[in-house]
């Protein structure tokens, strides 16, 4: 397997890092996280257009650039590094993934160009109040309404950018079905009649979630009705790998900032970084973050190559990143001392992201179990 970044990729990363550092300093993150939407359409459209970010992995035939997960994961890592407040994960990972994995050619032609150009902000609504991330837990009901149209009734929760997306891909269950059978994906416009969207209060204020209520909402099928289980499962693998890459970006940033602070802060007449316990903590953080990076990068390559072990590798990467990010966040606050516990210090913004990402799409226990299901089968 090709595993390692090319010169072009490294260049892409460093350009992106510069761009994002300028565009998304902590002051901007704090401004946006206090808004209900969590991002701004104009600003996001311009940024996206400048770099073609949502087009990145959409095939050229559908208005995209045709890159793979290697490139997409670079973008996510860099966005995680700066806590970019934008509907990127929802649009470029979840909705794009669902459409690419489930949609017919015609549906792709209809939906993807708008996403690629940045006109359409999209998301995927799958989990519900029960907070389970597996398709089998789906209860939202889809009933045929004639003429190839369907009606949706029920609710979804934990929907990334669900209250602001223009297009919502919805996982729903056909009449009389159970488990992984009878599941279908649908598309619904964000302003569809009968759809009620409520933003949720989140620990991680930089990533907005919503609860959606569907009351007889008219929906168009995406892919073959009843056949959503496999494309959805694939989309979740992609989501786990992409989130792992986003997380290691944040973890690395925390690690670097904490180390810089320790070198600057003087106690007992010397920089606190000169205390051996601080050095050991810093070294442990490096080990944690580098291991998680290795796993995340490998998993991205495994996605591009459709590796046979992919289900286990994706979960491994997510679990590893979750533990590393949370541990790094705990250390980072500790290294800052009292100031690390304040609102005005930026460390808690990443701590919150680490906590949210830890459980998003399933916590480390959940993913370790999935890993074992694959490897111990």
């Amino acid at each position, binding site marked *: 397997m090709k595993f390692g970044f090319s010169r072009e990729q490294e260049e892409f990363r460093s350009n992106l890092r510069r761009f994002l550092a300028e565009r998304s300093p902590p002051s901007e993150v704090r401004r946006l996280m206090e808004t209900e939407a969590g991002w701004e359409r104009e600003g996001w459209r311009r940024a996206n257009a400048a770099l073609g970010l949502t087009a990145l992995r959409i095939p050229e035939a559908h208005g995209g650039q045709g890159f793979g997960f290697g490139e997409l994961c670079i973008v996510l890592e860099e966005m995680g590094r700066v806590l970019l407040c934008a509907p990127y994960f929802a649009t470029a990972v979840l909705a794009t993934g669902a459409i690419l994995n489930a949609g017919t050619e015609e549906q792709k032609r209809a939906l993807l160009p708008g996403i690629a150009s940045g006109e359409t902000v999209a998301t995927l609504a799958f989990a519900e109040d029960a907070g389970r991330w597996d398709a089998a837990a789906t209860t939202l009901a889809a009933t045929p309404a004639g003429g190839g149209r369907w009606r949706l009734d029920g609710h979804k929760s934990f929907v990334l950018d669900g209250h602001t997306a223009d297009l919502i891909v919805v996982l729903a269950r056909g009449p009389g079905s159970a488990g992984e059978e009878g599941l279908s994906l649908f598309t619904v416009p964000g302003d569809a009649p009968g759809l009620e969207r409520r933003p949720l*209060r989140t*620990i991680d204020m930089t990533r907005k*979630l919503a609860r959606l209520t569907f009351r007889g909402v008219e929906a168009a099928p995406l892919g073959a009705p009843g056949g959503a289980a496999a494309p959805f499962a694939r989309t979740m693998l992609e989501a786990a790998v992409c989130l792992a890459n986003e997380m290691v970006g944040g973890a690395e940033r925390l690690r670097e900032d904490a180390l810089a602070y320790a070198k600057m802060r003087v106690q007992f007449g010397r920089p606190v970084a000169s205390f051996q316990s601080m050095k050991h903590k810093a070294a442990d953080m490096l080990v944690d973050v580098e291991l998680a990076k290795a796993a995340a990068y490998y998993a991205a390559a495994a996605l591009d190559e459709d590796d046979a072990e992919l289900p286990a590798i994706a979960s491994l990467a997510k679990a590893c990143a979750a533990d590393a990010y949370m541990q790094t966040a705990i250390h980072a606050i500790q290294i800052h001392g*009292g100031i690390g516990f304040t609102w005005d210090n930026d460390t808690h913004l990443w701590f919150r992201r680490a906590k*949210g990402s830890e459980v998003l799409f399933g*916590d480390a*226990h959940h993913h370790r179990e999935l890993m074992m299901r694959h490897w111990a089968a």
Partner: protein
Amino acid sequence: MDEAAVRAEVRAWLEAHWDPERGLVAWRHMLAESGWGVPHWPREWYGRDLPVGLVPVVEEEFRRIGAVGVAKAGIRMLAAATILAHGTRLHKERFLRRILTGEDTWCQLFSEPGSGSDVAAAVTRAEFRGNRWVINGQKVWTTSAHHADWGLLLARTDWDRPKHKGLSFFIIDMRQPGVEARPLRQMNGYASFNQVFLTDAEVPPEFLVGEVGEGWAVATTTLMHERRGADALRSWALGSDRPGRIYEEERAEIATVMEPYRWYPQRAGRVDLVMERARAAGRLGDPVLRQEIAKLLTLSRAAEWLARRARTAQEQGRPQGPEGSLGKLVASHVARAAARVHTQIAGADALLSGEDGPMGGLIAEILLSVPATSIAGGTDEIQRNIIAERVLRMPKEPNPDADRPFREVPRNAVS
């Protein structure tokens, strides 16, 4: 006096005097006079000279009948312990009773922008001018300074002596024009600590505690009590929802002067909620979760017993073993483990906060408050150093500043 006798006596006294329709302050005056509010304190000062080990017996009887105790939470008990150990008769007369009744609120003015772990490097200046001490400088992370009537102040009185020898300890009136407290917001959204600016603030000479230049020894007493008490934080500011005037007044106290401590039980991890949360989530059968809960309960129960061993040693007049110094560090371990388990139980709901979050946001508050435990009152790293150097007698870090005049010691540029 043995346990049964103490139990009988306190029970009889409570049955004769406890009345939930009494006023809170009036009741606490009765506790101060009877000695049952702080039975391990000296008889001369509102106590009964009971061994510390019997205090839980008295507390149990209070709980049994639902009686409210003396005001205990906050810095007040650190102030009381410091005054009992180092204060003059005047300090004791003036302050102890109002500490117990809750009429006065206290804060601890130790940490500064440039000195937290190295608190002996304080640069707030105290100068004797005419007939009073004049204080100039800045303190930080001062919990409840915005409510406080009095502060425990560590300030530098001599810059030519080594850092530990140039400090003095004062009781400062927080309600004077030279003292300005500006709340600082914390990562959990509360604003219970403050920046405190001292500009020509005044302290009368009789409010010096200990001798001039011996402030470090006094501060060490305060800090030792703070660290020993770390275990008690979990029950601070919980209050009772029972009907009755005294409970209402206690709830009002918790909502106002005790407000800075509202999140303190959450900061300790709320181990008490774990089992009920797991049951409510229908997860008690999950073998992975069961292991994690069992590990947490092992840690937290053993920590309680460790604290109890330390108290027992004290009661029997034996020197405390290492168990007395470990409690604060262990409290950090418990809090962090509890945050992990709460996350695991909450699952996806751990993403949510405020009214959308589990238990109306309480779980989110735990997750965002726990990081304070390993910082406040001396960081885990400092606790480990203390354990290694003082308990285990491992060689100390070289300390080139120990004998140098303080003015020559390198410090943070920003302070």
